């Protein structure tokens, strides 16, 4: 393993010039209604899942922005919206100043798409089992016409394989010949093939064992340092998020409830949901700890509670929380969507989740 001596740490917050990615009031609803006949005969209503319901995010060049939350909170939907796998129901996605929803010619769109790529969670499902690794990695180069000759493609692919610590000889193999961690390396090589600036990583290490996860996280941080990549990182693992992120957004039922720099979020979480989430992390230091687990579960996104979606589980909820939906407002260095924080009636719990 080449060690360049430069310490690999999470990138520091950037002075905000123009953000590389900007999401504005982004929404995505899914129609999960029963079939028309059932609706007519059985009088069943339409059912709409508000998977993403008004999300604003700005991601600066060179930083790692992470979205955390429990399953069903909409974090993966945001990832898919950003790379264009789903069209948004409403709202705006801006990449480097360009509105992704604007009508464009094919070539112009490809020029933007080339600059963002995605790494998926399941390295078993995201690689074509019938293709050799060489062709998997060469596909984006061919699709975007980034190399003039076969020779050039070969050189690029071999270089990419080395960058992810595989060998050029691995190119002739098929995905099934690799372990989960090695497959995720192939996914990363493929994502890097079009020389993108921005990578959307949807739970890239969740399917991997911890020792392999460490290899992949180290690799991702080294690549970020070497190529100045910007990451949108989706995860439910808070320790992983703490390790690699510059800033973190916490999602609950399709909305952001808190956005802050990583240290601020873990040292001084404001939103009751963030605190609850941080309370639940099983930690190696906590041998024999007895914790008071939170009651309740995430409600159905088909029928989200009125007002603040978290109020049924929140110990500080009052009438206003049940009625009026909180907006994401600045509170110190953090942005929080919570009436209790805004009114200052949340007990000032100066409890850091970062160990000294």
């Amino acid at each position, binding site marked *: *393993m080449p060690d360049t001596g430069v*310490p*690999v*740490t*999470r990138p520091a917050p950037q002075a905000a010039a123009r953000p590389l990615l900007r999401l504005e009031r982004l929404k995505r609803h899914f129609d999960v209604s029963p079939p028309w006949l059932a609706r007519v005969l059985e009088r069943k209503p339409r059912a709409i899942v508000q998977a993403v319901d008004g999300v604003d995010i700005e991601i600066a060049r060179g930083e790692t922005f992470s979205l955390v939350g*429990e*399953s069903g909170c909409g974090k993966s939907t945001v990832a898919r919206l950003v790379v264009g796998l789903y069209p948004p129901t409403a709202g705006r996605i801006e990449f480097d100043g360009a509105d992704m929803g604007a009508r464009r010619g094919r070539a112009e769109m490809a020029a933007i798409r080339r600059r963002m790529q995605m790494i998926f969670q399941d390295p078993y499902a995201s690689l074509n089992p019938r293709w050799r690794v060489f062709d998997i990695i060469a596909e984006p180069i061919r699709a975007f016409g980034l190399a003039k000759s076969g020779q050039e493609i070969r050189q690029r692919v071999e270089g990419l394989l080395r960058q992810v610590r595989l060998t050029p000889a691995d190119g002739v193999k098929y995905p099934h010949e690799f*372990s*989960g*961690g*090695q497959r995720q390396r192939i996914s990363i090589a493929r994502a890097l093939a079009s020389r993108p600036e921005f990578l959307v990583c949807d739970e890239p290490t969740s399917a991997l*064992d*911890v*020792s*392999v*996860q*460490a*290899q992949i*996280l*180290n690799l991702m*941080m080294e690549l970020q340092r070497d190529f100045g990549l910007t990451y949108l990182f989706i995860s*439910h*693992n*808070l*320790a*992983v998020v*703490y*390790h*690699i992120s510059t800033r973190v957004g916490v999602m609950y039922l399709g909305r952001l409830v808190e956005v802050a720099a990583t240290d601020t979020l*873990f040292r001084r979480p404001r939103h009751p949901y963030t605190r*609850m*989430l941080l*309370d*639940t*992390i*099983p*930690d*190696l*230091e*906590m*041998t*024999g*700890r*007895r*914790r*008071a*687990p*939170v*009651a309740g*579960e*995430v409600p159905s996104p088909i029928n989200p509670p009125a007002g603040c979606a978290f109020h049924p589980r929140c110990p500080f909820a009052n009438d206003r929380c049940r009625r009026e939906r909180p907006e994401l407002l600045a509170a110190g260095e953090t942005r929080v969507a919570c009436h209790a924080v805004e009114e200052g009636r949340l007990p000032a719990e100066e409890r850091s*989740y*970062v*160990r*000294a």
Partner: protein
Amino acid sequence: MTSLANAPLLEVSHLRVEFPTRRGTLVAVDDVSFDIAPGEVLGVVGESGAGKSLTGAAIIGLLEPPGRIAGGEIRLEGERIDNLPYEKMRRIRGARIGAIFQDPLTSLNPLYTVGRQLVETIQTHLPLAASAARARALELLKEVGIPAAEARFEHYPHQFSGGMRQRVVIALALCANPRLIVADEPTTALDVSIQAQIIALLKKLCREHRTAVMLVTHDMGVIAETADRVAVMYAGRLAEIGPVRDVVKQAAHPYTRGLMGSIPSIGERSHRLTQIEGSMPRLTEIPPGCAFNPRCPHAGQRCTRERPDLMPAGRTRAACWLYDPQGVGAPLRAETVDA
């Protein structure tokens, strides 16, 4: 009874699980020995393919053919259970050993209400009349924290959320008050907040019922919070076993140390994670000597030739020649270590 007080509840000695295949026999669990005391929680950790789930399956007698126990002994309260006929083992399973699996949906029958499944399990193992069995089932549902138990009694598994289903599975495992529960990744399919609820529930029930638990998981965080002792498995073998605090903080085996270092933690400044190069060998390619030797930074010649047994290593016991008075022998050549 007093004589049994200090005797282990479960004794596993030299367990070997094999899979005969066309290309030869694979040894998936190789010479594994440990015991569990009454009321104790033993965590079994390891990466995928380390043999932790198969060890659990062997204990509850649910190894899938062609997998079979090829050697060793499993004793429950002194009685040998690894060689019992199927029907006899079926009586023990449920009555004396309960099982909880990763995916609660596959442990529940989708065609029956949870109430019916509970009553059926109770009546299979306890001589109770229908009404008494129903009362016990309701009591169990309340005990595992299912709100409105009477109404939920008539519901089908699909009407429950993932966390609630896992509670039902725990209630099922507790039906006959077993002495031992084998829980295989009981929280892996659940969200973190639900995971915390289920762990707290398991711990509370074990304390109250004095049930011993063998908790199989790959999540060290869950183990650190729940277990009294930890067994670390690697390539079908036990690498290290000891009290949870010592294994987490002062691991002796180089593999355990690497494993602990590779877990991101919230605390120290963001730093590079410890990385164990390479990956666990496939069962067909387990190297001679210590199975970890090709990845071990301390490997010496002895490690490539002789297989270490568990030996005292500080506060734990580790299968590593570093803790033998004769040591590891001459270190390997550099390129062999890197490979």
